[in-house]
């Protein structure tokens, strides 16, 4: 991992995509000239429904898919000019398991280091380092097919880091991973991001993007429909729905001036809050009726709501 402060790449974006397009042999236009910049040190989410173009974009960046047009640069290295140099900066964790299931975990990571030209001694030291960090060292001599889904996912992360890339790309890293494992993986990713590794991830778990990422791009039908910071995106929300758990029994009908309130059951109230409105007014109205609020939560993931709006709006 690298520190930006001392890096000669300090002012260079980690990834620049300009007018990237892809038309598959069957005529399907997966990307329609997208442009994107990911700054160094960023934790960037690429979101989109299935078939939106996320995996095609990632495939082009790491050379598994041939682009039809446009330009991609990784740390200012144009992949058309010097793809091997660009590849040195990239670590990729694909969505599907793509290792030989009969090989041992340690061999998979050591071999990957060898493909990057790392001498066997260094390869083994690095492999041990990342297998330990990801809790897989005890399984190093176990054939990959014997590992659980979560372990296989972590094995791919260890493999992607063994050459210590500056840009780590993860395609749906939480797919098939249980909650506990997902949380520990998030902590690990946050740690390596804090150490200077730029991270791009695609995910279906919007909670994951909200918890980890600083910037987000939403892609749909091969077009970027939003590209901003998570904070800015959430600021665009025009309304939120809160669920209030109340201590006292709620009356059959309840009215709060300026708000749409709906009684769900004896102790649960749903309140729609629009931009510019304040919850204090809700609490004041309830307080006046001797109703105390025990706890409160969002009805739905805020980002999910925004995501659906953007995707439907672009459709």
């Amino acid at each position, binding site marked *: 991992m690298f520190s930006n402060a001392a890096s000669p790449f300090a002012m260079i974006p980690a990834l620049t995509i300009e007018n990237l397009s892809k038309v598959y042999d069957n005529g399907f236009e997966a990307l329609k000239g997208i442009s994107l910049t990911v700054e160094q040190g960023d934790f960037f989410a690429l979101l989109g429904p299935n078939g939106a173009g996320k995996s095609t974009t990632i495939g082009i960046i790491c050379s598994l898919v041939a682009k039809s047009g446009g330009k991609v640069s990784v740390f200012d290295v144009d992949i058309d000019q010097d793809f091997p140099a660009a*590849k*040195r900066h990239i670590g990729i964790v694909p969505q599907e398991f793509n290792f030989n299931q*009969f*090989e041992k975990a340690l*061999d998979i990571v050591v071999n990957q280091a*060898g*493909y990057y*030209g790392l*001498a066997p001694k260094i390869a083994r030291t690095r492999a041990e380092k990342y297998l330990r960090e990801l809790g897989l060292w005890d399984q190093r001599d176990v054939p990959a097919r014997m590992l659980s889904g979560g372990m296989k996912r972590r094995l791919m992360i260890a493999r992607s880091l063994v050459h210590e890339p500056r840009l780590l790309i993860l395609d749906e890293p939480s797919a098939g991973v249980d909650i506990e494992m997902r949380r520990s993986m998030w902590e690990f990713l946050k740690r390596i991001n804090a150490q200077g590794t730029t991270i791009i991830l695609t995910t279906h778990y919007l909670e994951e993007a909200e918890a980890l990422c600083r910037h987000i791009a939403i892609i749909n039908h091969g077009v970027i429909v939003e590209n901003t910071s998570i904070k800015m995106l959430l600021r665009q929300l025009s309304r939120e729905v809160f669920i209030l758990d109340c201590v006292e029994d709620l009356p059959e009908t309840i009215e709060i001036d300026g708000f749409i309130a709906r009684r769900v059951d004896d102790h649960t109230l749903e309140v729609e809050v629009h931009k510019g409105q304040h919850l204090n007014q809700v609490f004041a109205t309830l307080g006046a009726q001797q109703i105390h609020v025990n706890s409160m939560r969002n009805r739905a993931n805020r980002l999910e709501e925004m995501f659906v709006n953007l995707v439907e709006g672009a459709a």
Partner: protein
Amino acid sequence: MNLREQYVAFQTILRKEIKRYLRIWTQTLLPSAITMSLYFVIFGSLIGSRIGEMGGFTYMQFVVPGLIMMAIVTNSYSNVVSSFFGSKFSHSVEELLVSPVSNVVILMGYVVGGVTRGLLVAIVVTLVSLFFTHLHIHSYFVVVAVVLLTSTLFALAGFINAVFANSFDDISIIPTFVLTPLIYLGGVFYSMDLLPEFWANVSKLNPLVYVVNAFRYGVLGVSDVSLPVAFGMIIVFTAIAFAYSMHLLNSGKRLRQ
């Protein structure tokens, strides 16, 4: 990547290939030894003793070079075709494609892996043949050169087959319906002198005729075809197979979307 790093990558691919076929030696090394032993017993001892001499040698001595070459051809071919298709099938080939290792290193890693298996099986088969006959090497240079060129040629052919294969059926079609008939009709069991002129001329289109006869020259000192012509044909076929394999890798056909 600099040369040293490319060499490390080459060693890594080669080591992985060798570990693979040694791990499953009962599927990769043992069958050839058993099959060739049966050939020696049936064609060499039982039937061969009634055939008498061929090309001035006992029938057993005559078939041994062809059978060794048959083992080299099938093993170098099947090692690369099964290993590379397997890595395509499991998508583990992506480990190489996303890395900065050059295409020529990827190709050479797989090909040399196939060559080493061909050589290992050749040694095993040769040792087995010593139980049945006495072998006197006429030209070590020719033997070594033909073995290396032939195993390289068929390892490359296996690579091309693997790139085009879409299923495990596709990697057995060529060995079953093309390679095996060419080997059997390549003069392993008979001298071209026995064929009518027309079929002798047709046989000259078969690359295995040159391979088998060049190797037989190296071992016994006799050949149905001219040695320079045989070497020339093997080198030309190898160069074409290498160029086409590189074209497939560089274009990314059937490997990248």
